[in-house]
C-alpha cells in the first residue's frame, strides 16, 4: 500500500533509526531516563525562576563523536507573569 503514496526510501529509515539508537548507545541513557532528567531539571529551575514546563525540551546533540545535552528552557516573561498574579488573572 505504501508504494501507492510514494514509498519512503528504506535507507532513510535506517539512517534515522540509527541516529536515535547511537545516541542512546553512546550515552547509556534511555528515553525514559532522559524524561526523568527533564522532570528533575524543571523542578530545580522552577525553584529559582518561573519557566513554562510544557515548553521545555531536552536533547542529546552530537558534534563528531562528542555529545552534548542541549536543554531549551523558555522563561515566562515578567509581563505575562504579572498578568497571572492572583486576583488579576482571574476575571
Amino acid at each position, binding site marked *: 500500500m505504501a508504494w501507492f503514496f510514494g514509498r519512503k526510501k528504506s*535507507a532513510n529509515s535506517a539512517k534515522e533509526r540509527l541516529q536515535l539508537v547511537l545516541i542512546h*548507545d553512546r550515552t547509556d541513557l534511555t528515553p525514559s531516563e532522559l524524561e526523568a532528567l527533564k522532570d528533575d531539571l524543571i523542578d530545580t529551575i522552577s525553584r529559582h525562576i518561573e519557566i513554562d514546563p510544557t515548553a521545555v525540551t531536552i536533547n542529546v546533540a552530537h558534534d563528531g563523536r562528542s555529545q552534548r545535552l542541549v536543554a531549551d528552557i523558555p522563561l515566562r516573561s515578567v509581563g505575562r507573569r504579572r498578568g497571572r498574579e492572583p486576583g488579576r488573572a482571574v476575571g
Partner: protein
Amino acid sequence: MASKVVTVASGKGGVGKTTSVANIGVALASRGQRVTCIDGDIGLRNLDVVLGLENRIVYDLVDVIEGRCRLRQAMIRDKRLAEMYLIPAAQTRDKTAISPSDMVRLCDELRQEVDWIIIDSPAGIERGFKNAIAAADRVLVMTNPEISAVRDADRVIGLLDAEGKGPASLIINRLDPALVKRGDMLTVEDVVDLLAVELIGVIPEDENVIVASNKGQPLSLDGRSKAGQAFQNIARRLMGEQVPFLELEPQNLFQRLLGRK
C-alpha cells in the same frame, strides 16, 4: 621504516574482517612490504583457508606464546609472495589461552622481522577483541552499510577511544551501488556521518570475493576486480599515499559478464 601493527575489528561477525586482513596483507606484500598476518580468532581459525595456506600449518599462535616453538617456526610463508607470512590461530583452544600482554610481547618480537603486522580480531568486544587490539598502533573498524553492523561498529569505535586506541579508521565493505542508487542502502556518506570517523576504504559487493576464497587466492592480486582494487587502495593509504576513492556505479549487464571469471 618503523613497523606498524594494524588490527581489523568490527564488533559484528560476518562483515568481512578475515577477507580484508588477507587482502590488505597480500596487497602490502605485493608492494614489496614485509607482512605478517595474525589470526586472532582462537578456536575459530579461518585466515589460513582464505589465504590458501591451511595445509602448511605446523605451529600456531598459542604454540609460540606458550613456548612450544620459536616465532619463525609459526610464521607460514605464503606460496605466492616472498615476504608474506601467516601466524594461524589455534583451533583447539579458546580466547583465554592468551592475554593482551602476550600479544604485546609477541608483536614486539615480530616488529624486528617485518614492516607490517595485520591482526584479524574475532567478532565481539570481549577477551579476543582485547587481545587483538592490545598491540595495535592503528585499528581499522569494518562495517557493512547495514543497520546492525553500523551499530556494532559504533560500539567498537567508542571502546577503542576509551582504551586509548582511537581514533579508528573505517572500512565500509559490501557496498552495493545499485541498492544505494535505489535508496535501499545506506550511502558511504551516511555511514561516515553516523560514525564520525575517518574513512580508509570502501569495498564494493563483488562475487569475485567468494570465488577467490573458494580458491584460496586473495583477490587483491587480481587487478581486474573492483574489490581487489579497493583493497590495494587501502594498502596504499596505510603506506601514506593519498588515493582517491573508486567511482562506484551500478554495473550494467555487459560489465557484469566481463567482471565474472
